[in-house]
């Protein structure tokens, strides 16, 4: 017989009590950890999106907003198929306040035979680009050659491997970092490659939604405004001065999402705190209710020679052990739900969702762990105090 064994028997041979406490600990740690990760993932998603855009203004054909919600172009990579005259690029270059600009061309087909997810092929200008290349996780040397592509992080294609697009073998020479949006399933290619792909598609009889070639049209122009210029003013000037286009501030494209996000993230925080407080209160009630039930047991321990300190330690150790186990299980359950289903959450919520890195996740796990193994023992301090001060003489005098 040892004190450790006594502790073990107390935990194992009171399965209902142990399970109830374990359950509270599991709920608490899962809520804190899962909630923190979800909240951080959403925040990561929008941050990465804002950074990745790199552009202050996006210019699109006026008709674009009728076909697709602008926000979705960014968030879900909803294939956009809208075009405007290529000359607009030159006109835009002349607008006062425009620092850099780069055009993109969206090629959309009804189905892509390469991937399970529909890929959006985006033609971009390797030379002028300032919004795609900063996100290359591995840089390629020189410029993007014929039938060479850069793939989004969501595609399984690795650098050096090829991807078959409309029957054309395209070699992946670069891969982008994860953005947590639909852009992760896009493929970037040079105008030459896009032209080849359109030809290949036509010859195979695959319908391509664009009839015009990237020689004549473009889908969007990304603009970086010169320092010292007011972005809204530049956008307004473009809208007023150039027919058939709309200039949209990238920030404003994201505000709707950002607002939604801060609401969600706020609710998640409130929820975490609510679960936390509730669990703490329930624990306190459970522990306090258990005091009366356990008085006799502790009076016996006292009579056979347990000091008050040992009695208190016994109560606290029991709580601590259960909390430790509960916290580990809770974090494991939350991980098993949040991480594997992050894609699903992204598509279901329509929000960018970028899981935090291992280190950050470990940080949140530590937070949840700490929350549980602090709250539990704290909630049992009072009962530990009461049980360590049982009036042995009085209790053992009475029969039961």
């Amino acid at each position, binding site marked *: 017989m040892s004190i450790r064994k*006594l502790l073990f028997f107390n935990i194992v041979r009171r399965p209902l009590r142990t399970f109830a406490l374990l359950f509270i600990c599991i709920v608490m740690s899962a809520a804190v950890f899962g909630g923190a990760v979800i909240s951080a993932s959403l925040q990561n998603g929008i941050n990465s999106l804002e950074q990745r855009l790199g552009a202050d203004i996006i210019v699109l054909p006026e008709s674009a907003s009728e076909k697709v919600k602008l926000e979705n172009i960014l968030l879900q990579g909803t294939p956009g198929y809208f075009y405007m005259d290529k000359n607009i690029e030159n006109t835009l270059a002349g607008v006062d306040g425009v620092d850099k600009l780069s055009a993109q061309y969206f090629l959309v087909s009804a189905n892509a035979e390469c991937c399970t997810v529909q890929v959006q092929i985006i033609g971009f200008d390797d030379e002028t680009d300032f919004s795609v290349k900063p996100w290359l996780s591995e840089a390629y040397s020189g410029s993007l050659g014929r039938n060479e592509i850069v793939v989004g992080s969501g595609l399984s294609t690795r650098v050096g491997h090829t991807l078959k697009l409309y029957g054309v073998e395209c070699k992946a020479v670069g891969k982008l970092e994860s953005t947590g949006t639909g852009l992760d399933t896009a493929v970037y290619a040079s105008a030459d490659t896009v032209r080849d792909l359109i030809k290949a598609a036509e010859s195979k009889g695959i319908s391509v939604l664009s009839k015009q070639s990237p020689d004549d049209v473009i889908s969007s122009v990304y603009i970086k405004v010169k320092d010292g210029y007011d972005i809204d003013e530049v956008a307004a000037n473009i809208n007023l001065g150039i027919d058939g286009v709309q200039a949209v501030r990238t920030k404003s494209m994201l505000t709707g999402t950002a607002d939604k996000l801060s609401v969600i993230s706020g609710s998640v925080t409130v929820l975490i705190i609510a679960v936390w407080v509730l669990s703490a209160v329930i624990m306190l009630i459970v522990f306090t209710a258990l005091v009366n039930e356990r008085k*006799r*047991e502790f009076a*016996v321990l006292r009579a056979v*020679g347990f000091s008050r300190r*040992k009695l208190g330690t016994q109560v606290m150790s029991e709580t601590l052990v259960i909390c430790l186990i509960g916290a580990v299980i809770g974090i494991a359950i939350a991980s098993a739900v949040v991480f594997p289903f992050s894609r699903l959450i992204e598509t279901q919520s329509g929000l960018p969702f970028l899981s935090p890195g291992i280190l950050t996740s470990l940080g949140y796990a530590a937070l949840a762990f700490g929350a549980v193994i602090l709250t539990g023992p704290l909630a049992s301090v009072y009962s530990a105090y009461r049980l360590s001060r049982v009036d042995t*003489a009085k209790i*053992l005098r009475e029969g039961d």
Partner: protein
Amino acid sequence: MLITAQNITKSYQRKGKTKAPVQVLSNTDLSIESGKVYVILGRSGSGKSTLLNILSGLLTSSTGTVRYDDTDIYSLTDGELSQLRCKRVGYIPQGQSAVGTLTVRENVLLPTAIVGNANGFSRADHLLEQFGLTPLRDARPDELSGGELRRLSIARALINSPDVIFADEPTNDLDEENSRIVFEQLRNAAQSGAAVVIVTHELFAQEFADVVYRMQQGSLIREKGQ
């Protein structure tokens, strides 16, 4: 081994409206020597359990001193006193006192959890045999009868071979035959050197006693022995 209690008084604060303190023990003296059996008789409510609790250090007297050899137990810290109780005192409480999560054998072994006892297991098995509990060694207390629980708490009190045994009505739930067996066991413990203090209503317990006291009006009156 000599326990000396001197000038012990104990009053309880009643919880009722009057809150008048009730004096249960008044200026009681008692000394206990190794190898002897002491029997304390007395009416219900006369303060017998109170006295045993004070002697074992579970209760603090209002006045007076309790010494174990030269040690004044009121000068000890809670940790030291608990240690002393574990190693030197076997306490058989009046009420039910088995721990529900432990088997009969584990209950008997309970005091060894604190100080450790190399022969704990063999001694436990020996005691279980002695008290006829061997067939019940793996049973839980809630499966035991009152008499079996009583024997269990006696076996537990003996596990660490204490210097002194306080038994508060140890034969409460037993028939005469079993009561005699228990008194016999306690007598044996005294023979192997322990001091044994028994509170009981059984008059025939006197046969086993070296010294008999009667508790009356808060004091001990000697009826047999010296």
